[in-house]
C-alpha cells in the first residue's frame, strides 16, 4: 500500500522532534480526521529557513509527508518555501494512496501555518518597536 520511501521516512524520520529556538510554529489538522501536524522553523534575518522540524500525530503517510516537507523548505527563503506544494511532497515520496493525498496537503498547510505564525510575530514586534519609538 505504501511506497518504500514512505515506509523509510515513517520509520526513520530525519526531521522529527521539537526545536529549541524556533521562531515560527504552525499547527494544522484535527483529531477527528486523525492527523495533527506541528511545524517548527528557524528563520534568519535574511528570511531564509535555516532549520525545520516537525511533530505529527497521524498515520505513516502523515509522518512521512511532514518529514519530506521539512526537507523541501530547509535552506529556502520564505517566498520559495511558500511555493512548495503537496505535489512536491508526493513526488518525493514516490506515491501516496489516493485516500492519503490529504496528508500531503496538510503538510503543505503546516508550512504555511508556520510562516503565517512567523509574520504575525514579526508584526507584533514591529508594533511594539513603533510604540517604544
Amino acid at each position, binding site marked *: 500500500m505504501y511506497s518504500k520511501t514512505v515506509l523509510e521516512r*515513517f520509520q526513520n524520520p530525519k526531521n522529527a522532534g521539537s526545536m529549541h529556538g524556533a521562531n515560527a510554529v504552525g499547527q494544522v489538522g484535527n483529531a*477527528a480526521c486523525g492527523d495533527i501536524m506541528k511545524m517548527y522553523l528557524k528563520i534568519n534575518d535574511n528570511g531564509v529557513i535555516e532549520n525545520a522540524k516537525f511533530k505529527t*500525530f*497521524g498515520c*505513516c503517510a502523515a509522518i512521512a509527508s511532514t518529514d519530506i516537507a521539512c526537507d523541501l523548505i530547509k535552506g529556502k527563503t520564505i517566498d520559495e518555501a511558500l511555493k512548495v506544494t503537496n505535489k512536491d511532497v508526493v513526488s518525493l515520496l514516490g506515491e501516496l494512496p*489516493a485516500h492519503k493525498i*490529504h496528508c500531503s496537503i496538510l503538510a503543505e498547510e503546516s508550512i504555511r501555518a508556520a510562516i503565517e505564525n512567523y509574520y504575525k510575530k514579526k508584526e507584533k514586534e514591529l508594533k511594539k518597536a513603533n510604540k517604544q519609538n
Partner: protein
Amino acid sequence: MDRKIYLDNASTTYVSNEVLNEMLPCFNTIYGNAGSLHSFGRSSVAVLDKARDRIKEAINAKKSSEIYFTSGGTEADNWAVIGIAHAYANKGKHIITSQIEHHAVLNACHYLEKEGYQVTYLPVDETGLVNITELLHAIKKGTTLISIMAVNNEVGTIQNIKTIAKIAHDYDVVFHSDAVQAIGNLNINVQDMEIDALSISGHKIHGPKGVGALYVKSGVKIDPITFGGDSQERGKRAGTENVAGIAGLGKAVETACRNQALTSRKLKSTRDYFVEKLSEKVEYFQINGHKHQKSNAILNVSFYGVEGESLLMLLDLAGICVSTSSACTSKSLLPSHVLKAMKVPDEIAQGSIRFSFGINTSKSDIDYVVEEIRKAINKLRAISPVQPGRF
C-alpha cells in the same frame, strides 16, 4: 524479523486441519452438483445434510431445515435484515438495530431506508451495551424486526440477547442477531435465547472463507434476496451450493461450539496476562468495551497521543499483526463508528488497536508483543504533538 505473531483472529483465522480434512474430498471426489438427481448429486446432498445437522446441534435449533447456507456472514446479515423486512412489509415498515452493528447490517438498513423503510439506530452506553429502555421506547406499531449483534466485533461487548429477544416477542417482533463473533466465544442456544434468526460465518472459527449460514426459526417468514434455481436451499437461497465450504463450515461450527468453554477459559487467561503486562510496561492507555460482559477473544485498547495506523505499521514491521478499529486504513477518515457511539473522544478513538487472540497465542508471544508495543509507543509519542498525559 522472522518472528510472526498473529493477533487478528477476529478478522479471520487459519483453517484447522480437521476442517480441511472434512473439505478436501469435496473438491475432487464428492464433486457432484447437489441439485443433480444422480448418485454424484446425492453424495453432495449428503454432505450438505451432515453440515446442516452439525450446525443444528451446535446452536440447538429445533430442525436442520432451519439452517440455510450463504456465502458468508455478510450475506447472512444482508438477507436476514432485508429478507425479513420484506416478508413482513404488509405488517409495517419499521425496523430497529443499533449504532454499533457490523456494516453488513447497517448498510442493509440503509438500503431499506432508500426503499422507504424507517430504521431506528439505538444508541449504546460507554461500555457498548444497547440501552434497553431506549429499545422499549423505539418499538411501535409497524415495527417488524429488531437486529442486534451478540458480540461486537471491535470491542467485544456482549449484548443482553435473551432480554432483547424476550422484549421483541412481547411486541410480536422478529429478532435477528449477528453472531459472527459470538460462535465459539459464547454459548449460543437459539431455543433458550429465543432467537428467530442468527448469522454465522465460517472463517472466524477456523473454517473456510466465503461460507456462512443463516438460522431462521421455522414459522418466521423471510423473502429470498437471491434469484435463480428454485430448488436450492428450499427455494430461499439460489446458487449452486458451495459443498466443500459448507462441509468445512459444519465441522468448524461443531468444533467451535464443542470447545467453547475451554477456548473461552484459555483466551481469558491470555487476555488477562496481556492486560497485566501492558499495565506494567506502558503508560496512558484505556481499554474500550465492557469490563466483564465481553468476549475473551477481543481486546480494544486506545493508546493516548498516538494514531492507530502508525502503531499498527510499526508492529507489523516487528512481525505482529493487529488491526486498527479506526477506519483510517479504509477510505473513510472518520474514527470507528463503534467507538464514536460509545462516546470515546476522537483523538482517543484514533489511537485504538484491536488485539484478537487465538487458541495458540502463548505467554511468550504476549511478552514479545507488549515489549514491541512499548518501543513503538515511545517512538511515536516522541514525535507526537499530542501529549498523552493530558487526557
